C-alpha cells in the first residue's frame, strides 16, 4: 500500500487563494502600472521602462534609499546586541520570569501609529516630558521638529524602544531551550563566561537570531507609520524614508507609474537582502 501521496497539497489551496488575492494580483497590477502613465479615469498610456530609468537615476531616490539603509543598519546594530544582552540577564526560572516576559511584550502590543504619537508628544520641547526635561532642565538644545540630528536620534530610539523586545523574546526562547548539561560541561572545563556565550549560547541561539534579524530587517526596511506620525519625514526631507517617499509620489503627486516602478525596485532590494541573509545563515545547516 502507498503510504505517501500528494493529497496534502489540497490543504494548502485556501492559503494559496488568499495570497493570490491579497498579494499576487495587487503585485501584478503594480507591475502593469510601472510601465504606463495614467491621468486617472482608468486610462493608461504605454511608457516602457522609462519610469524605472527615471527612478534609478534620480537623486531623490538615491537619498531616500541611503536614509533607509542607514536607518535599518542603525536599528539592527543596536537592537540585536541589546536584545541578546537583555535576554542573557533575564531570570531563567522563578516568579520574575512571567513579570519580565509581560514587561517585554508590552511595547509590541501598542499599535504603530500610537507609538508614533506617543513619542511625538513625549519629545516635544515645550510640553513633552523628555523634550522639556532635556531643553529646560539639562539645557541641551533638542528639538526634533527643527533639528535633523535630533529627529534621527528620536526615530532610532523610538524603534529600539518598540522592537528590541522582539529580539529579547526570541533570544530568550533560544536560551531557555539549552539543556543544563551544556553548562555543567562548560563548568567542568572551567570555561569563562565569554566562552560559554561564544561556544554554547550563541550557536544555540543562531536559528532564532536569524529569524530575529530577518524580521527586524524587513520590518524596519518597510517602516512607514511610526516615523510618518513622529516626524512626517521632516525636518525638510531628513527623515523621509523610502516608504514615506513612495507614498508621497503615489498618493501626494498621483504619479502611479514612477511610484509603481519605485515599489518594484524597493521589493527587489527587500527580496535580495532577505534571501542573502537566509541563505548565508542557514548554509552550514544544510551541509550537516
Amino acid at each position, binding site marked *: 500500500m502507498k503510504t505517501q501521496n500528494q493529497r496534502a497539497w489540497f490543504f494548502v489551496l485556501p492559503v494559496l487563494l488568499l495570497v493570490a488575492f491579497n498579494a499576487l*494580483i495587487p503585485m*501584478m*497590477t503594480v*507591475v*502593469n*502600472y510601472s*510601465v*504606463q502613465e*495614467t491621468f486617472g479615469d*482608468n486610462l*493608461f498610456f*504605454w511608457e516602457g*521602462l522609462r519610469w*524605472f*530609468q527615471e527612478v*534609478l*537615476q534620480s537623486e531623490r531616490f538615491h537619498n531616500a534609499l541611503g536614509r533607509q539603509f542607514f536607518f535599518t543598519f542603525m536599528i539592527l546594530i543596536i537592537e540585536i546586541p541589546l536584545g541578546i544582552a537583555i535576554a542573557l540577564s533575564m531570570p531563567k526560572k522563578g516568579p520574575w520570569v512571567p513579570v519580565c516576559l509581560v514587561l517585554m511584550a508590552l511595547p509590541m502590543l501598542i499599535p504603530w501609529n500610537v507609538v508614533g504619537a506617543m513619542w511625538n508628544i513625549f519629545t516635544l520641547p515645550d510640553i513633552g516630558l523628555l523634550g522639556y526635561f532635556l531643553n529646560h532642565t539639562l539645557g541641551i538644545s533638542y528639538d526634533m521638529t527643527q533639528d535633523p540630528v535630533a529627529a534621527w536620534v528620536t526615530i532610532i530610539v523610538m524603534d529600539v524602544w518598540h522592537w528590541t523586545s522582539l529580539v529579547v523574546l526570541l533570544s530568550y526562547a533560544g536560551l531557555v531551550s539549552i539543556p543544563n548539561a551544556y553548562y555543567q560541561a562548560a563548568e567542568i572545563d572551567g570555561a569563562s563566561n565569554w566562552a560559554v556565550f561564544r561556544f554554547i549560547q550563541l550557536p544555540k541561539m543562531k536559528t532564532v537570531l536569524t529569524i530575529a534579524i530577518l524580521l527586524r530587517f524587513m520590518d524596519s526596511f518597510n517602516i512607514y507609520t511610526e516615523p510618518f506620525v513622529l516626524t512626517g519625514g521632516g525636518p525638510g526631507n531628513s527623515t523621509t524614508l523610502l516608504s514615506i517617499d513612495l507614498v508621497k509620489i503615489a498618493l501626494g503627486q498621483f504619479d502611479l507609474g514612477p511610484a509603481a516602478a519605485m515599489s518594484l*525596485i524597493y521589493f*527587489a532590494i527587500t*527580496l*535580495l537582502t532577505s*534571501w542573502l541573509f537566509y*541563505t548565508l545563515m542557514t*548554509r552550514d545547516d*544544510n*551541509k550537516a
Partner: protein
Amino acid sequence: MLGWMAWTWPTALLFVGIFSAIGFLTVLELKFPGGAERVGILRLTTTRGDRLFITLLGTAYIFLAWLGLVGMPLWWPLAISIGWGVFCFWKV
C-alpha cells in the same frame, strides 16, 4: 473584469513566462522528484526551483543596474541575463 488591472501585452507575457516556468518545474518535479538537488559552485545547496529563483532575481538586478548606470537600449543586459540563466542552471 480585468480592466482595473491595466494589463499590457509585455507585462502579460512576462507573467505567462514566469508561471509557465513554474508549471514546467512542477511537471519535472512530478516526473523526477527530489528537485535535482546539488551543491553548486557557490557552495549553496540548490534545487531546480532555487536555480529559477536565482536566475529571475539576478535578471531583475542586471536590467535595473543597466537602466540605472547606462540606460537604453537593453540588448546587452538581455544577453547577460541569458548567460546568467545558463550559468545558474548549469553550475549553481
